């Protein structure tokens, strides 16, 4: 074979093969691995700082290596913080159980969900900070302002101080529960709806009822969903920080201390970095253990079964009687009304002038108007709104661009079995890692790179923090596509459009779920923005927090800011909720 170029003549000549052929394994194509490269790079944003924190935790003040820093666990304040953080994880797990039971009830009482759906979605859409604000308003200690205090005083003559010592836990847990219960119920309900009819009929025919039915049918069938739900709630419980900061009045902050706050305030007292790092590592270890056990369902390779993911025609269940429908309808209406009340309180408070909102409760008819909104606008709300739009959009786009190929790699990229498991497990652990584990080194790195206050840097951190959960979710969705379909799509042009349509129908909900959830999560974030970003980014939540310092006297402004901050995520989640639920559960169908 010859080649001529620029007057040069090149000739390539083959050589005879001598000797015997060398035996070898067929090479795995390296191409697909490249798909995971961006994710690896982005994850380094978290992995390296986590490494730094772990090293700091094991480095004694004199520079030697050892367990000396863990002596911090003997400090009663730190111990209380660890205890409280664990209590929050317990609350999260309790909520999963309660949510499951409620989902069962709603499953058995058809008609219930008509009203319940939006009532359950709205709390989930608003940020923890907003829900904290709302519950602090509801439980305010003055009978003129606080809803519960007013009702209690009317009924029993006097009222306990709900935000006082001990009782503030009730307020905290109510706010947390209000935020998350709807999510848990919706997911479990979707899971219950997806149980194939023939299976449940078989179980019924065998005479299995009551608890035995629950153990034999519903629990095992819902295991994968339980994994997703547990994972999200544990993450939320570990992130509890802003809720305590905004709900609990100063003197009780000490009792309500959680590890995140303790770690943050340690800067005040000048505690050595190693000790606080040790605190973070302890929390991290506990959480990682809980998460790995809790999400075992996610790792099961159930999706390899060739099942139809496409929704079969509706109306498989026998039509409920008119009476039970009416009961469900009434109960649903009452529960929804009750569940939506906090949102009503918030909006009504915002519609009062700052003076009226500080003096009287949301039900007062005096001083109605938009004055509080004007006051909130003066506090830099609009600027923060733009800032938040930018950060959330960039974070969501980056996340999608990076998470999709990675999830594809993990699901279909032909990774060796062990590697797939390692990747999945590391993503699970990374997903529950408390922000404190990487905040300090990451912020220092961003600062020394001259990127402090950069919105894009903050968006990247958000994308990195959202990546693990997104990949896990998308992987499940991708993997749930019937293998035969994928094989057809990979092999030939035959019926490719039909294949693509099916594949799209399978993946789209998961993609929408990831995008919507990430956007809402970043929009509502407080802790990442607070700990990692610098001045210059000022997301909405920070404005809200600044307004809330003198809480009740500025409750009108705070409520107005909270309402403004909540509009976008509420509208977004209400419009996409069905798809989000389908996306969250698609990979976990039995």
């Amino acid at each position: 074979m010859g080649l001529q170029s620029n007057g040069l003549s090149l000739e390539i000549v083959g050589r005879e093969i001598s000797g015997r052929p060398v035996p070898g394994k067929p090479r795995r194509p390296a191409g697909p691995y490249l798909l995971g490269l961006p994710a690896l790079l982005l994850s380094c944003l978290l992995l390296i700082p986590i490494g730094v924190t772990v090293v700091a935790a094991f480095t004694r003040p004199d520079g030697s290596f050892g367990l000396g820093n863990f002596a911090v666990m003997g400090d009663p304040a730190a111990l209380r913080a660890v205890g409280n953080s664990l209590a929050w994880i317990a609350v999260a797990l309790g909520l999963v159980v309660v949510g499951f039971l409620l989902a069962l009830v709603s499953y058995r009482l058809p008609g219930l969900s008509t009203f319940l759906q939006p009532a359950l979605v709205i709390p989930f859409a608003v940020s923890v900070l907003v829900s904290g604000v709302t519950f602090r308003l509801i439980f305010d200690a003055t009978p003129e302002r606080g809803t519960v205090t007013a009702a209690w005083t009317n009924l029993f003559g006097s009222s306990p101080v709900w935000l006082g010592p001990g009782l503030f836990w009730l307020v905290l847990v109510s706010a947390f529960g209000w935020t998350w219960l709807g999510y848990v119920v919706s997911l479990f309900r979707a899971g219950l709806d997806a149980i194939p009819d023939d299976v449940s009929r078989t179980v019924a025919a065998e005479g299995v009822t009551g608890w035995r039915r629950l153990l034999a049918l519903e629990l095992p069938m819902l295991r994968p969903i339980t994994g997703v739900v547990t994972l999200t709630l544990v993450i939320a419980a570990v992130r509890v920080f802003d809720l305590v900061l905004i709900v609990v009045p100063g003197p009780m902050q000490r009792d309500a201390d959680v590890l995140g706050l303790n770690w943050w305030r340690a800067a005040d007292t000048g505690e050595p970095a190693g000790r606080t790092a040790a605190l973070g590592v302890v929390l991290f270890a506990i959480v990682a253990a809980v998460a790995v056990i809790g999400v075992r369902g996610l790792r099961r390779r159930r999706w390899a079964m060739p099942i139809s993911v496409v929704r079969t025609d509706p109306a498989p269940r026998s039509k409920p009687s008119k009476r039970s429908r009416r009961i469900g309808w009434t109960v649903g209406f009452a529960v929804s009304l009750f569940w939506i009340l906090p949102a009503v309180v918030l909006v009504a408070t915002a519609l009062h002038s700052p003076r009226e909102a500080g003096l009287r409760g949301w039900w007062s008819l005096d001083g109605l108007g938009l004055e509080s909104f004007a006051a909130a606008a003066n506090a830099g709300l609009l600027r923060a709104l733009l800032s938040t739009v930018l950060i959330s959009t960039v974070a969501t786009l980056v996340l999608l661009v990076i998470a999709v190929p990675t999830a594809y790699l993990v699901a279909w990229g032909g990774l060796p079995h062990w590697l797939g498991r390692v990747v999945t497990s590391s993503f699970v652990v990374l997903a529950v890692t408390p922000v404190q584990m990487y905040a300090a080194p990451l912020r220092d790195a961003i600062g020394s790179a001259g990127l402090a206050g950069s919105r894009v840097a903050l968006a990247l951190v958000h994308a990195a923090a959202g990546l693990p959960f997104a990949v896990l979710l998308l992987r499940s969705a991708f993997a749930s596509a019937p293998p035969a379909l994928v094989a057809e799509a990979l092999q030939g042009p035959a019926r490719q459009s039909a294949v693509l349509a099916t594949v799209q129908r399978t993946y789209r909900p998961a993609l929408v779920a990831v995008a919507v959830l990430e956007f809402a999560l970043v929009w509502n974030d407080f802790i990442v923005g607070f700990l990692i970003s610098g001045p210059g980014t000022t997301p909405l939540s920070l404005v809200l927090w600044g307004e809330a310092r003198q809480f009740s006297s500025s409750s009108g402004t705070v409520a107005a800011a909270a309402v403004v901050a909540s509009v976008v995520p509420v509208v977004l989640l209400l419009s996409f909720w069905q798809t989000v639920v389908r996306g969250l559960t698609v990979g976990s169908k039995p």
Partner: protein
Amino acid sequence: MSWSSQELRAFQSVLDGLGRLDYPVEVVPLGDDISTAFGPRTARRPDLVMLPQPGLVPQHKNNLESMPDDLADRGRTRLWDELLVVDGTTYGLPFKTAHKSAVWYRPSALDKVGLKPPTQWSEWLELNRSLSLSGIRPLSLGAGDGWVLTDFLENVLLGSSTSTYQSLAKATRPRPSELPQFAAALRLLGTMWSAPGTFAGGVERLLVQQFPDAIVEVFGHRRAAMVLASDFAEPVVRSFATDPDDIGMFTFPPVNPGGAAPVVVGGDVMVLPKPSTDDARDLVRRLAAPAAVDPWITTGGFLADGRVTGYSPELTRLAKQLVAPGAALEFDLSDRLGKLGAMNGLWRVLTDFLVRIGNRGSDVVPGAVEIALADLKKVES
């Protein structure tokens, strides 16, 4: 800065009044956790900190840039120089002065018992007794903000033993728990706080009440007659008062017969964390101009160092007391005690003290003082 809501908006109006700036100014509220601004836990150090605890300046001087030479003298005025000037270098400039010995009250409540504002500590105790006998709760207290409690104690201590106050402020030895005068001040405070029927709503309510809430209790819901609050309470008092003419103010009375009235001074000082920028220095220069704070003075609740005109009648009285010769002026003590004066120190000890004695009668005071001193000792070590 640590300002919130009304204060924040007033400051925004000050910024707006500065005219066109060549750089954007972003306001970062940090609440009571303001000292995290210097710590490694805050994202980026702000370029300019409005520090509400001037006593922290000497502690943090290694993290602070010295003030530009042309402005340095502004930090060397009476009282401020004790804190802002270290080894001849000025590290901060006063922006806002706080008079922390003002008591706001409802004249109508005092009229009911036919008494005038007290001019002596003993008269104040007498007034409280008369009020509670006639069914009016004398005091409201925003115990949800720890500094409200320390301010109260500081006034009593400064009024009862100026020398003890000064020695605690200036030297690290002896510590408060070792001084009998400190214990005596706690007992005096205990006498007032423990009197049955003193506080509106009971002690638990006080704990969830921040300083504006305490003011709303007095002027909005009219459940109490008086509240110890600073000059900066003025906008809150006026905006929540149900009767705008029923507002009065007296200054903390002398504690010892014949003694001087205590005046505890606080304020927000401008400091520049290292490394500072030209823009930050320019902003300090602009904010330090006397006319810069006019918008806030118009809003009310703002005292500027050395200035006695342009305020409401109540604030003018306070401003005059601040410049009067011979007044027992001292800076806020809690900022100068370091860790001891902070959230887990004196704040917490006084909160527990209040819970033990509030509304419970004077019998419980001696025991509670002992416990408070023991608690303090633990923090001191």
